[in-house]
Structures are given as structure tokens and as C-alpha cells.
């Protein structure tokens, strides 16, 4: 029975094909926007979460407030962290080990192909082992760095297997290969194991002092990040407050006006996530507005259909259609417009999101922009569009069902 009604409704929609498509455009633009933008946002969130996932819970990072949004963390700070802070932090209770790290960017060239990448430093001396254990650094090819490696570099797994090599270089880089970093020759001593995070997998690592001597980091007595490993994880919040207090004193700033952050990886993640959530919320609101506009389009079309088909409604009533039958027919019609609009929208949104992440992957060699479209997003969008179609179809359908059979048979409006 309901399948008969659906087929009747489909006939009516196909009869007025152009109008049906035009009406559905309103819905599918909204749905495409929701699906692609939420999908990309979700992809970004997943990507960011996975970048942070490897870090332990017993680590704090100290950074000077950044003025630029792009670029590596700790770069471009107007008031960078002074190197002597490292020793002062080391003296704080519950601090196991603190060490300064440099982060910069440089050109890496291999077989005449170039790419700009982040370079991160590895502390020397006895800090090296602590750092390696903290970050769980292991090589899949070659070995880790030693203090003697003045012209040695450690590369992330992507240079060997992943996207960076694939998009840039014409063959994988192996341990023992020579590469040019800022036009100076380095030997690749090892390739790191894959960590599933671009922070490691795309990274170039070299010793702290090498970054200074090779001019990748200016020798100005500052560091980009101070990493702090605490002894007792349960006390980490107190330690964080102690470090903040020390930095306020050293940098002469008042509480509430800090030009630096002391965060656990989880906190950094949360603040990023909340920003991302706000963006997603904003995008969703805009998309919902466009859906409402689309829904009003459906309503308009359905009211027109009721007027146009007044006589048809009269005929159907005269041959036994009840009010509820007429209501159902019109209701299905508007719901179908919503749902088919939604399906097209989902298709468009998905191709847009996946297309964009594919192009971004090719152009940037990074998997940070990637779409993550869950089945729930798809089902949700579909339900939502059907819901919109029906909600805005209710009033016209009621109008149609209430038509007086005698008047409508005469074709009176």
C-alpha cells in the first residue's frame, strides 16, 4: 500500500522534473556543505588527535606565545624563551628533566628534488637517552643519532615509505643516503619507525648543537620549546603551576597576562579541539540556515503543486481517497524531495571533501587535510534532509487533504 503511494508520488515528481530538481538544489547545497565541512573538520580533528596521541601523560611543554598562526610551534614569538630557563625549571620540585629544543624549517634536497620541512632538535649528552625514551624513538633502518654526528640527520618514516617521498622524491631515502639540508650535505644515519603522526613521520631530526652551527637556528640564547618530564604524574598540575609562577617572575608579567603557555599535550589538544568545535558549529549553523531556505523552497513548490493539482485531488477523493490518503501522497512527495536532495548532497559533499583532501595530499604532501566521513554523518544528513522535506511539506499536505471534493473537482482554488 505505502509502496503504491510512493510510486504515485514519484510519478508526480517526475512529471515536473525541472521544478523538482530546482527545489532539491536548495536541499543538496545545504547537505553538501554539512557533509563536506563536518567531514573535513572531523578529519582534521582525527589527524590532530593522532599527532598528539603518542605523547605521554607525564610531559609538559613550555612555549612563548606565538604571533603567527602558521609555522612551527614556538617560532615567531616576540619574546622567546631564554635558554637559562631550562636550568631553573630543572630545579623545580617534581621535575625529572627539562630540556630546551629547537624547531626550525629547512630545505631538504635529494636527487635534485626539493621540499621544505620542519627540523626538530634532539638534545645531546645524557638528555639524549631520556628524550629517546620519552618519545620512544626507534629506527627501522640505520641507527639513532649520537653526539658525534655533526653532519648526520635522522628522517621520519615518510621519506622512506610514505607520502613525502611519494609526492616529492623519485625514490625512497634510505639510511646512508646523502641529502642536502639548506644546501649542506648531511648523511642520513637512520629512518624512524612509522608513528602515524606527521610530527615524526615528516620530520628531520638533528642534534641541538648542529642546528646552531649550521645556522638553522639562530645562536641567540633562546629555545623554541622547553620539554619537561615530571617524576610524579599525580602532581603534574602543581608542577605546571610552579613553572608558570617561575616564568611570570622571570619574564616580569602579571597573572592573567601570560605571554607563554605551559601545557600538557592533553590540554593543548583540548584547546585545539574546542577551537575546531567552534568552527564546526559555525559551519553547521550556516548549513542549517541554507537547509531552512531549501525547506522553504520545498514548501513553496508543494503549495504550488496543491494549487495545480486541485482537480486531481478532487478526482482522487471522488474515487475513494480519504483525507489521510491525500495527505500521505503529498507528504511522501516532499519527503522524497528532501531525501533525494539529501542523497545528492551527500554524494557531492563526499566527493568535495575527498577530492579536496586528495588534492591537498598531492599539493602539500601532508595528510593533515583529510576527510573523515562516518556512516553516522551520512545517515544523520539523510535523516535530517528527509526531516526537513517532511516538516516543510506538512502544511501544504494538510492544505491538500482538507480540500473540499466538490470545489476541487470543479478546479476551484
Amino acid at each position, binding site marked *: 500500500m505505502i509502496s503504491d503511494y510512493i510510486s504515485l508520488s514519484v510519478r508526480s515528481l517526475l512529471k515536473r522534473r525541472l521544478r523538482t530538481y530546482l527545489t532539491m538544489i536548495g536541499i543538496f547545497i545545504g547537505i553538501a556543505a554539512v557533509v563536506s565541512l563536518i567531514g573535513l573538520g572531523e578529519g582534521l580533528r582525527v589527524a590532530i588527535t593522532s599527532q598528539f596521541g603518542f605523547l605521554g601523560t607525564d610531559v609538559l611543554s613550555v612555549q612563548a606565545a606565538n604571533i603567527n598562526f602558521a609555522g612551527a610551534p614556538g617560532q615567531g614569538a616576540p619574546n622567546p624563551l631564554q635558554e637559562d630557563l631550562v636550568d631553573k625549571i630543572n630545579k623545580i620540585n617534581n621535575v625529572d628533566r627539562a630540556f630546551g629544543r629547537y624547531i626550525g624549517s629547512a630545505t631538504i634536497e635529494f636527487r635534485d628534488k626539493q621540499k621544505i620541512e620542519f627540523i626538530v632538535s634532539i638534545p645531546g649528552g645524557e638528555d639524549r637517552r631520556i628524550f629517546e625514551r620519552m618519545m620512544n624513538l626507534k629506527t627501522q633502518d640505520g641507527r639513532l643519532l649520537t653526539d658525534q654526528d655533526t653532519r648526520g640527520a635522522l628522517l621520519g618514516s615518510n621519506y622512506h615509505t610514505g607520502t613525502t617521498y611519494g609526492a616529492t622524491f623519485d625514490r625512497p631515502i634510505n639510511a646512508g643516503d646523502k641529502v642536502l639540508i639548506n644546501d649542506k650535505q648531511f648523511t642520513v644515519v637512520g629512518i624512524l619507525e612509522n608513528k602515524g603522526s606527521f610530527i615524526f613521520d615528516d620530520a628531520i631530526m638533528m642534534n641541538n648543537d648542529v642546528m646552531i652551527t649550521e645556522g638553522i637556528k639562530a645562536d641567540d640564547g633562546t629555545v623554541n620549546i622547553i620539554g619537561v618530564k615530571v617524576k610524579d604524574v599525580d602532581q603534574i598540575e602543581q608542577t605546571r603551576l610552579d613553572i608558570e609562577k617561575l616564568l611570570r617572575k622571570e619574564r616580569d608579567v602579571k597573572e592573567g597576562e601570560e605571554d607563554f603557555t605551559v601545557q600538557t599535550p592533553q590540554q593543548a589538544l583540548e584547546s585545539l579541539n574546542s577551537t575546531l568545535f567552534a568552527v564546526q558549529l559555525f559551519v553547521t549553523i550556516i548549513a542549517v540556515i541554507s537547509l531552512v531556505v531549501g525547506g522553504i523552497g520545498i514548501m513553496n513548490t508543494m503549495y504550488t503543486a496543491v494549487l495545480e493539482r486541485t482537480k*486531481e485531488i478532487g478526482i482522487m477523493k*471522488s474515487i*475513494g481517497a480519504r483525507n489521510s490518503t491525500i495527505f500521505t501522497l503529498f507528504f511522501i512527495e516532499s519527503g522524497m524531495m528532501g531525501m533525494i536532495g539529501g542523497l545528492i548532497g551527500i554524494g557531492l559533499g563526499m566527493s568535495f571533501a575527498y577530492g579536496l583532501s586528495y588534492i591537498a595530499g598531492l599539493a602539500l604532501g601532508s595528510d593533515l587535510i583529510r576527510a573523515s566521513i562516518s556512516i553516522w554523518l551520512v545517515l544523520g544528513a539523510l535523516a535530517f534532509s528527509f526531516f526537513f522535506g517532511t516538516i516543510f511539506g506538512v502544511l501544504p499536505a494538510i492544505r491538500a487533504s482538507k480540500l473540499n471534493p466538490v470545489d476541487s473537482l470543479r478546479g476551484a482554488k
Partner: protein
Amino acid sequence: MAKKPNKPIIELKDVWKIYQMGEVKVVALSGLDLAVSKGEFVSIMGPSGSGKSTAMNMIGCLDIPTKGTIFLDGKDISQMNESDLAQIRGQKIGFIFQQFNLIPTLTALENIMLPMIFQGMPRDERMAKAKKLLKMVELDERMDHKPNELSGGQQQRVAIARSLSNDPEVILADEPTGNLDSKTGNTVMDFLKKLHKEEGKTIVMVTHDEDVAKNADRIEYLKDGKIVKVLKSGR
């Protein structure tokens, strides 16, 4: 005089219909009495504005009277709500209209199946029945044609087949030949007469054409909203 007719299938008793048109009251029916027995073929004639169409709407359960009672197959329909009326129309009445009134998006076969869909008849059953009815009106070759691919006479024959789809008690024909030339009109009338004679269907036909009206057993003349003259046909 005439033999006592069977129990009436349609009975209108002192039926009034008054329309309020703004300030003016329009009396369309003023105390109409009419009884149609099972198996009868009755024509209702009258000048325009005599209340023919309103009477037709009352008998067809498309509208309810302002005053008075209407019995259809022993049931008082004058107080029913629209949903119950629709049910009765679907089951007990088959309409044939002057303008054929087929649904343009559906094929001949589907048009005939539509009333059966509204009664919830299973697909196979209604398909078989619709085919049988199309065969009866000699249009089985035109099964998949849409109304606009059929001639006027053919459309009216599809409409006749449609009116029979739920085995109604009564067939109501409103100027069934009004939009047809006399030759096709005669063909359509032949089908109606056949229904009456061979199938024993009760037929009520509204027309202003005396020649057409004469096909019936009885002609009721309507003027100013009530029956003014009854004429037995010469048959």
C-alpha cells in the same frame, strides 16, 4: 399503476442545500425527494441552475445536505464525516464525469487500479481486475496509454472501467456524453446500457440532453431544487 419497486438503494428525503455566498444565501436544493431502487437506471434532467449537479454531489457522497437525510444502501450518510464519506464513495459509488477526469500521469490500466489502491486491494488482484475491466470496455490494447494518448471516447470508456473497479452499488454519470460527439456518445451510452442490462447495475445519470436521458427507465425533471415531473421512458 407501476409495480412496487424493490427496496431503494438511494433515498433522499426532504434534502435542502443552501450555500452561503457572502451575504447572499443560494438555495440549490429545496426539499428534494428521490428514491432509486437497486438495478434501476434513472436520468435526472433539468435546466442549468436547477440543482442537478448539487443533487449528484449529494447522491455521490461528495457533499452533505444542509437539512434532510440521505440513505445509501440503508445507511444515513447525511451526518458522516469526510473520511467515512470517502470510504463509502470508494466502495459503493462509481463516478463517470463529463470531463472523464482521469489522472494524466497514470496509464489507462493504472487509472483503473487507482480506486482499488485506495481500498487496499493487493497488487495481483487489482491488476487482474483492471485488465478484465479494460477488456470489457474493449480497450485492452490501450492498457499502457496515458489519457492524452487516447481519444475522448476512449478516455470515457476507461472512466467507465474505473467506475466499476470496486464493484459499486451505484454508478453516477454526470453528463457522460457531454464532451463527446453523438457517435462516440452513443458508443459510451451502449456500454452504460450494457452495464445496466447485463450486470444489473444501478445507474443514476445527470444530463440535459433529452435523447440521452431517454435511455433510462425513468426520467426525473428537476427545477428550482426539487423534482417537478417524473416520466417513464417508453421502453
